[in-house]
């Protein structure tokens, strides 16, 4: 367990710091000035020192200088109410890992302590190089910041009807927030994490490129898509020049919205996995897009099946209760999936509705598939 030394002449600051550091699971010891701090450092090794600047007897810069003089390389985070650049520049030259201005927020202290202890080096060189590509769209589960609600789509358009139209064309499982002003967009982006932000290019009094750039600061992982009218101009080229990743044309049509979904809500969403149980999401598009739905599910099944096999499961259970049963597309997909499972040596079971059971029984090729009415039943059968 890492041990941290907090050096500060204020008992209340030491108490607050000690509590927060202990909450992180680390041990903490205290010193009330630089002399005591050096004495403590002489007795044992610490993993990190949190050091104030202004203290009696020996101040922070003085203690830091003596530490480095005697070869003590313990990382130091300055924790101070001193914000003069000359002072901070001075201690940076001697060697600090990071800096926190008092009064500080607990999350800043925790983030910086963890960053230094985990070897990330605190305030490293982080400026983006010009040629660096933009970040990939967010991965919801992995990216959600603590305490922030995750929402799939943000629509920034002064016309409320635009939000309603898009809401009606997106599947129910895709969440959406709509706002009508730049101020509201900035506010919601401070409170939530979005995967895709759609920004209208014609909001009165708003430079959409500037607004998009501001929103990017708050949503570094989101993809930014311009909402624009179809014109004879190169709208996509113009939008990309303004920093947007893509364009969704207004008025919306289902084909464009489905393409948008396919691009930003990857196939993984249509087929989710929990251990060896794979579950198909409902289909919410137009009837003539069912083929596309099954093509995408098929592509995802391949990669998920590989993961199930790699995890040494003997069975894979595919729950298609929510998948559309119109025509023979589902039966064909299940037949192909069963064949793939057989090739990797995994037993294949299907969970579905009674209607699906009837369909599968009506084809010679599929009536032999292991069919169950629920996931629990399939799991029990697999363990038997």
């Amino acid at each position: 367990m890492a041990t941290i030394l907090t050096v500060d002449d204020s008992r209340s600051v030491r108490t607050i710091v000690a509590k927060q550091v202990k909450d992180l699971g680390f041990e903490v010891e205290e010193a009330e000035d630089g002399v005591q701090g050096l004495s403590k450092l002489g007795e044992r090794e610490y993993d990190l020192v949190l050091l104030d600047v202004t203290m009696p007897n020996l101040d922070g810069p003085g203690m830091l200088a003596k530490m480095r003089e005697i070869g003590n390389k313990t990382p130091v985070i300055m924790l101070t109410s001193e914000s003069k650049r000359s002072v901070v520049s001075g201690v940076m030259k001697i060697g600090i890992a990071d800096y926190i201005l008092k009064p500080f927020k607990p999350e800043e202290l925790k983030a910086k302590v963890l960053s230094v202890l985990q070897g990330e080096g605190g305030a490293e060189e982080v400026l983006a190089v010009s040629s660096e590509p933009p970040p990939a769209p967010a991965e919801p589960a992995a990216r959600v910041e603590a305490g922030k609600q995750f929402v799939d789509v943000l629509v920034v358009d002064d016309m409320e009807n635009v939000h309603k139209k898009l809401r009606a064309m997106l599947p129910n499982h895709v969440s959406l927030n709509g706002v009508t002003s730049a101020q509201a967009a900035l506010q919601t982006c401070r409170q939530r994490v979005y995967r895709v932000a759609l920004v209208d290019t014609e909001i009165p009094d708003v430079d959409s490129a500037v607004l998009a750039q501001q929103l990017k600061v708050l949503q570094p992982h989101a993809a930014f898509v311009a909402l624009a009218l179809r014109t004879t101009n190169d709208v996509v080229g113009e939008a990309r020049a303004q920093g947007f990743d893509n364009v969704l044309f207004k008025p919306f049509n289902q084909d464009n919205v489905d393409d948008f979904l396919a691009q930003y809500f990857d196939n993984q969403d249509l087929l989710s996995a929990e251990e060896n149980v794979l579950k198909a999401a409902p289909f919410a598009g137009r009837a003539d897009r069912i083929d596309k739905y099954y093509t995408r599910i098929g592509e995802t099944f391949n990669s998920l099946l590989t993961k199930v096999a790699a995890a040494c499961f003997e069975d894979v259970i595919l729950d298609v209760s929510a998948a559309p049963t119109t025509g023979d597309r589902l039966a064909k997909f299940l037949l192909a999936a069963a064949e793939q499972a057989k090739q990797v040596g995994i037993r294949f079971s299907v969970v579905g509705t009674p209607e699906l059971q009837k369909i599968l029984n009506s084809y010679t090729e599929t009536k032999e598939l292991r069919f169950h009415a629920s996931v629990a039943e399939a799991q029990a059968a697999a363990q038997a």
Partner: protein
Amino acid sequence: MGAERLSEQLEQIVLKRIAEDSLVLPTLPSVVTKALEVLKDPDVSFKHVGTIIERDPVLAARLLRAATSAAFAGGTKKVTLPEALTRLGARAVRTLLVEATAQKVFVSRDPKIAESMKRVWQHSVAVATLSRDVLALSGNADSEAAYLAGLLHDVGKPVVASMLLEFERQVTEVYNRPFIDSAEWVTVIGRTHRAVGVALAEKWQMPEQVTRCIRDCAEYDNADRSSLVNIVCFSNSLAKKTGIYAGTIDADEVDALVMIGRSIIGANDEIIKTLTRGLKERVANLYD
């Protein structure tokens, strides 16, 4: 007279002229003054504003170009000047008018300072752009004030540089004496430009918070963390760290300002990367 003594005297002359209100400062063109005046009325018609601005065809063309850029409506069709102003909105029009005027202040015909002033202008645009984006962290949408504050934070530099050119002409041509070297030029400008910038901002009747930024943005104000001063101070250090600056910088001090700003503004590594990604290209493309 030694060069050091001369630079001190020059500094005193600049500061004395400010104190005595005898400093000759660039003025806002009458078209801009009039347009800014009528734009104070929230009910003003853009047709009326358009009739004022169209007296300056270059300015009118600049506003039309801004309004028909992709950012403001997809550049779909040709628009009249009142339509362009309506599309931009009063706040953006005000900013564009000040920006067009300020840019002229940074243009010099003298080859000795022309290139430096162009780089100071590019730095100012970078700081303005960053300030507008950093402001988003506070959830505040008044990006025009942040942009103006960033844009004008160094506006005193070209004014002092022009004065030094005039002093140099007098000293070398009239009195046949050597003038200060380039390092001392930088020192004199560094010591006086903020006071001159404040005088200019007051003359141009800029918002008080913009003037305050020009005066105080060399250091952070830790009594008011969300102040525009802190936003411009952080943006200034980020622009320098990204390599967009003129003259020489103290790299240690810039690093210190970035480190303090990370804490005071609440910017993590990811935010800083987003802020600075493609900044050089964005600034270069704005004023080709």
